[in-house]
Structures are given as C-alpha cells and as structure tokens.
C-alpha cells in the first residue's frame, strides 16, 4: 500500500505544481539578493540570509528557513488533510478498504506519503537553492575554505554537511508532527479542505500564541514552539537544549495524534 500511495503522489500533477510554487519563493529571494546585493543585516530577517551574500553555498539553508515556517506546513496540511477525507469524498475509500487494505495500514501509508512529499519538497528546494546560490550569490568560501557559523566561528565543510542533514531531519520531524495532526483531522472531517484548514489554524494559532506573554504557561507545549530550533545546530558549540525539547515535543504530537487518528478511524462507519 505504501508503494501505491507513493506512486499516486509522484504521478499527481498537483504534487509537482505545489513543489514548484514552494520553490519559487526562495528562488525569487535569491535572485533579488543577487541583483540588489542588499542583504538583511546579521541577526535580522530569515536565518542565514545575511550570510549568503558572502557564501552562496549557504543558500540552501536560508531557503529552508524561508519555506519552513509557513509554506511547507501549509502544503503538508493540504496533502495529509486529504488522506482519508479526500478518498472518502472521491468515493475511493470504500474500494480501497475492500481490496482489502487494513485501516491501520492505510493510515501508515498516508503518513509515509505525506513525509515523502516533504522529503521531495525539501530536496527540490535545497537543490535549486544550491544552484542559485552558487551561480548568483557570493563565492568567497572558495578562498576561505569553510563557512561561518551563526556564532561567527568557522565550520569545516564536512561539519557543515553533517549539521545540514541534522537540520533537515529535524525539520522533517516537525513536518511529521503537522502531518499527524492533519491525518487525524482528515479522519474526523468530511472534507479535506476542513482538515487542511483545521491544521493550518492550529499552527498559525500556535505561532500567534508564542508571541504573547500571557501564554507563558503553555508555550513550551505549543506545536510550533521549537520549529526554528534547527538554527541552533549552526552555533558553535551546538545548542542542544531547544533541539532536544523540540524532538520530544514533536514525537509526542505524532504519537498522540496518530493514535487518535487510529482510534477514530478503526471503528468509523464508512458511508460515503
């Protein structure tokens, strides 16, 4: 079933359109930076953006920092929100279940497909950004060898690559949290739009609450609390505290919402 879901994902024109749209923003940012040479000052604007003017190979990270807070989670909400509700609305859910595809297996396959979508998007964004960065942006790293960490010290290339992969893994875990919420709502809502909007309002609401002093008591449990903690991977030394908290929190969200999705879907009457 996982293979079937992946094949459906890859064959859908919408998948590629969405990825292209997500990819457009960081590319536009890259082009604008190259043309104007006006980077944000260090410590302002999206993470890493100030650094890319001197080192274009850092642009993939900057691109991720651009898509992660909003674009990617929206796309994940839509993809995973469609999982069950979309099949139900199209009438195919009943035919999938009588093949038979076990209900748990279907949920797992849907979650895996949503994650495959994330991986695909991240790879495309990173690859395009690398090309844009190397072709258009600063190339001082060629002489300096090694890049600058957020803390100002120099990182060797293997170090940088390792930390980039850790950052990607962390970002994907955050998106898995989003996907689990969307999957749960998809088993509850009768339309995929409802599930997607519900998920978006959860993380938009969470981001809003984070800016509020009054929400101090619950802020450590909000789903978006540690989303951008991957920046800490590029400090020297790495600041693990938020990252650890983030991993635990996301794993908890995934576990709770996947269990809820299963509990709801396992005994649900499929009547559409």
């Amino acid at each position, binding site marked *: 079933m996982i293979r079937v879901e992946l094949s459906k994902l890859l064959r859908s024109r919408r998948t590629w359109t969405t990825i292209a749209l997500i990819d457009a923003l960081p590319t536009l940012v890259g082009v604008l930076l190259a043309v104007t040479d006006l980077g944000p000052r260090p410590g302002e604007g999206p993470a890493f953006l100030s650094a890319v003017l001197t080192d274009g190979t850092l642009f993939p990270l900057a691109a991720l920092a651009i898509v992660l807070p909003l674009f990617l989670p929206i796309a994940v909400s839509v993809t995973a929100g469609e999982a069950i509700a979309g099949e139900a609305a199209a009438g195919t859910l009943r035919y999938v279940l*009588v093949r038979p595809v076990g209900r748990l297996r279907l949920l797992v396959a849907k979650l895996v497909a949503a994650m495959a979508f994330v991986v695909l998007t991240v790879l495309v964004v990173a690859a395009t950004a690398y090309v844009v960065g190397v072709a258009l942006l600063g190339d001082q790293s060629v002489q300096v060898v090694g890049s600058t960490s957020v803390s100002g010290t120099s990182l060797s290339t293997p170090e940088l690559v390792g930390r980039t992969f850790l950052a990607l893994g962390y970002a994907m875990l955050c998106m898995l949290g989003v996907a689990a919420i969307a999957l749960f709502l998809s088993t509850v809502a009768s339309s995929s739009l409802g599930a997607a909007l519900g998920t978006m309002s959860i993380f938009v609401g969470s981001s809003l609450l984070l800016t509020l002093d009054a929400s101090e008591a619950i802020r450590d449990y909000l789903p978006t609390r540690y989303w951008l903690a991957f920046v800490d991977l590029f400090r020297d030394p790495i600041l693990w505290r938020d990252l650890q908290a983030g991993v635990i929190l996301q794993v908890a969200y995934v576990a709770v919402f996947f269990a809820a999705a299963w509990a709801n879907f396992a005994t649900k009457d499929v009547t559409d």
Partner: protein
Amino acid sequence: MSRDTAIRTQGLTKYFGRFEAVSDLSLDVREGDVYGFLGANGSGKTTTVRMLLGLVLATSGEIEVLGRPMPRSGREVLPHVGSMIEGPAAYAHLSGRANLTLFDAMAPRSRRTGRKDRVEETLDRVGLGGVDERPVKNYSLGMRQRLGLAAALLRKPRLLVLDEPTNGLDPQGIRDIRALLLELNADGTTVFVSSHLLAEIEQLCTRVGVLDRGRMVVQEELAVLRAPTGRILLGTPDPDAAIAQLDRLGRSVEQHDGRRLAVRAADAAELNAELVRAGIGVDELSVERRSLEDVVLAATSAGNDTFARPPRAVQDAS
C-alpha cells in the same frame, strides 16, 4: 442438496444514531446463487452491503461471508469478494488502466507478475478492452460503471456483491452486464445483486430477498415466488360466447377485460380444447404467474397498491 452458504447473517441490526436502518436481518445466500436483494429507496440495501464488507459496523448481529465471520476475518475473506457499492469510484486524474493497476497493487500479497495481463483481461471482460489512456474524469457514466465492475472482477472473486450495478446504463449496457453476470455465475461465481429494478432481478436471479424499511419481508427461490396462480389467461375474438360456454362448463371467469379473460383452471390445453370444441376461437393462451412486482408490492406496500390482483397472491407472499 444443500450448498455451502456464501452469505449468512443473523439478527443483523444497524442504528445510525437512533434511526434503525437495518433491523434483525437474516440473509441466506448459498454458493452458486444469483441472489437479488430488492427494496425501495432507503430500505437499507446499501447499508446491508456495507456491513457485509466491513465498511459499516453492525450495531448487533452476526455476519458470515464465505464461511468466515465478518468483519473479523476481512483479511482472509475480502480477497475473494468483488464488490461495487453505491456506484463506481476511481481516481479521476488517472486512466482506467492506471486505476485498475493501482487497485490490483493494493490487495494484500498481490504479485506484480501478470498484473498487466490481469488488467487487460478484465478490461476486455467488461467491454473496455480498446479504451485509450484518457483520464477517468473524461469517461461517460456507462464507462465508469464498466470500470467499476472491472475493479470488482479484477481478482476473479468467488463472490460478487454488487449494489445497483446497472445504474445509469443504457439498455445495451444492461444486457451486457446481465450476460456477463450469468456467464460468471455459470463458471461458479456467486452473485449478490441489490436493485430496485424488479424486471432486472426477475431476469437475472435465482433467489430473491425483499427488504422493506430495514426488514426482510420475503426470502425465497424465484421459481417458488413465480409459481402459477391457478388461473389461465386467454384471448378470444368472441368473449361473450366464451363466457357463456365457460359458465355452462362450470368454470369461473374471474376477470373480463374486453376480449381477454382470466379463468380459474389448472390445465391450459384442456381449457383450450373445451372452447375450440364449442366453436369458440382462442388466439392467446397463457398460464398466469405472479410477477415479481406483485410479490414485492404485496409484501412491502400496505395501502399503496394500485394494481388489481387476486387476494390469494397477498396471502402467499407473506
């Protein structure tokens, strides 16, 4: 000889909230049957079919399909069951072929080898063998219906459960489907088909169950339901003379409609001979049988009966 049961339910009941959609239903379908599941709109046919397939969970009661309890044994049972539930459905942006390929791949332990052949063979069966690669969203209603049937037939099921399979088909399409189902049945497939088209069921089925507001009101072999009523229908150019002669013979003419008479008699040939001997021409002659329509209406619609019918038929049906 009693055959194995293909579907058996006992006390099957389904509440949607406080609404009782299916009530204490006992289905009995044997292997090799073509079973017609009749009922008016909203009588609970689709709900029953969904329960048989494990899509809707029964409030109470037992279900056995191909000798195994459902929905508990769905993993073992469903690979041998092909189904169409309340109209076909497919992934609209993919072609019919791609859809069948996906559905084939979904099934547990489905092999890749021979998949292409399975798909093509099934498309041929339903008359879509020559279809191009246009996406299903551009299919006509009839093509979708055929594709839905193809998806049901994909794994050569022992049991077909079809909910209104001819919905939206033209007369030729309906005939094709009927011929296909009879052919499959001749090869040993049990067919369970729900419909509200009585004529459809009458031409196809060997056994009939009639549902009325969630309750089973009739379940019987079609041949038994369609037993002769004990009357002969005859047409004559000279009805008055015929009635006079039949009176003399002590036969009761129960209905008289222009030149057509309904006469209580067991043997059509004997009746014919009597009339001809008296010099009265007979140009139509048939043994009256209850139509399925009579049976169903008698069983389901108290007070909503606009068809003239002898009162005995009402008794037999219950």
